[in-house]
């Protein structure tokens, strides 16, 4: 089955442009003898655009995409076959099509080296007063390609056994891949010094740079919960029915961004503007420098 990959927003622009072109062509009129060939060409173009391509583009836009209707991303549908097209079984969309990779294809691309990570943030290497950088991502539109559970069997066993025990430990680890489209990547420069872990380190704002990037964000998220439980009710009870009296949670993440194209960082604008908040911030330090920050690694 031949497939067709398309960007719905751009394809809709094409539909409107075809309608406008058709409108322009219909306004071209002449009955002069010297323009016979021209008018034949105009009529031919009008038929091609109006009778074939405009309906065909509309059909694709109205088709039930295999990838669902989840935003301004590439969608895949069955190719209806076009004028002069060959419904061959050759690949219809290349591996470099932005955002078209599946979860597995991204992992394969990383393993084969086809997907290259964005340059890692600079590390201060523990030297007081040295500069280091953090990279934040403020997504515009994003699509989650999928996730896989990386929780170890031992952790799952501990989770299972925690049910009904006075002290329990639950741990969860996931690998997620998210495609970010036109996200704002902010590279901030900091000085390694003592700082409030909640407020974060001082930022040298005049050295902040930013770029608009699209690509795959691969994130490993970990969470753990320690619980102290008491059994519900006196005497013989369901051993799994317990009530948590103390619960302490920890969470963290690490990740790497694989851009579609090398980002072009430029000095950040100081002009007041509407901006999406940064959702992920990474440094290369061994442990997150600030609550909510992650480590640049997978």
């Amino acid at each position: 089955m031949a497939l067709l990959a398309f960007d719905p927003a751009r394809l809709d622009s094409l539909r409107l442009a075809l309608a406008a072109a058709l409108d322009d062509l219909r306004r071209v009129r002449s009955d002069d003898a010297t323009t016979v060939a021209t008018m034949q060409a105009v009529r031919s173009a009008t038929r091609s655009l109006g009778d074939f391509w405009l309906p065909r583009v509309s059909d694709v836009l109205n088709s039930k995409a295999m990838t669902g209707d989840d935003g301004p991303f590439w969608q895949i549908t069955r190719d209806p076959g076009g004028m002069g097209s060959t419904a061959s079984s050759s690949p219809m969309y290349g591996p470099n099509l932005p955002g078209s990779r599946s979860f597995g294809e991204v992992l394969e691309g990383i393993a084969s080296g086809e997907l290259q990570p964005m340059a890692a943030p600079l590390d201060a290497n523990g030297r007081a007063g040295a500069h280091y950088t953090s990279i934040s991502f403020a997504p515009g539109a994003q699509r989650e390609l999928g996730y896989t559970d990386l929780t170890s069997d031992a952790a799952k066993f501990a989770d299972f056994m925690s049910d009904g025990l006075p002290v329990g430990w639950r741990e969860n680890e996931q690998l997620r891949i998210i495609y970010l489209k036109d996200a704002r990547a902010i590279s901030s420069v900091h000085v390694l010094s003592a700082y409030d872990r909640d407020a974060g380190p001082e930022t040298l704002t005049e050295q902040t740079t930013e770029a608009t990037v699209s690509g795959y964000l691969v994130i490993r998220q970990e969470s753990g919960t320690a619980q102290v439980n008491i059994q519900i009710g006196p005497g013989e009870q369901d051993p799994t029915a317990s009530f948590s009296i103390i619960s302490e949670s920890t969470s963290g993440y690490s990740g790497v961004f694989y851009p579609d194209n090398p980002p072009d960082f430029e000095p950040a604008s100081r002009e007041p503007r509407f901006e999406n908040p940064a959702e992920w911030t990474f440094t290369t330090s061994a442990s997150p420098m600030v609550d909510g920050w992650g480590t640049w690694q997978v």
Partner: protein
Amino acid sequence: MSTATQVEQLRARARHVRSVSSAISSSRALTVYSLAGPETWVGPTAQACFDALIAVRRQLQTQQQSLGDTARRLDRQADELEQSRFRTMAS
């Protein structure tokens, strides 16, 4: 029909042909192909559409050139007729 009328008709036809050429050159049919590339869609139909729109553009541009030549030819005929009329009047 007088020569002056013929000259005027030829010039009117040249103007009309130029207006047709101008309508084609400003038509969005010449630029619509730029929205049909692989950044919009990819697949056999997409490629066929892009090829067809490029063919339409080429066809219209050829006609546009041809219309320009026609308009110049009509103007030249008008000039020649006018000159012959002046020569006749002078003699």
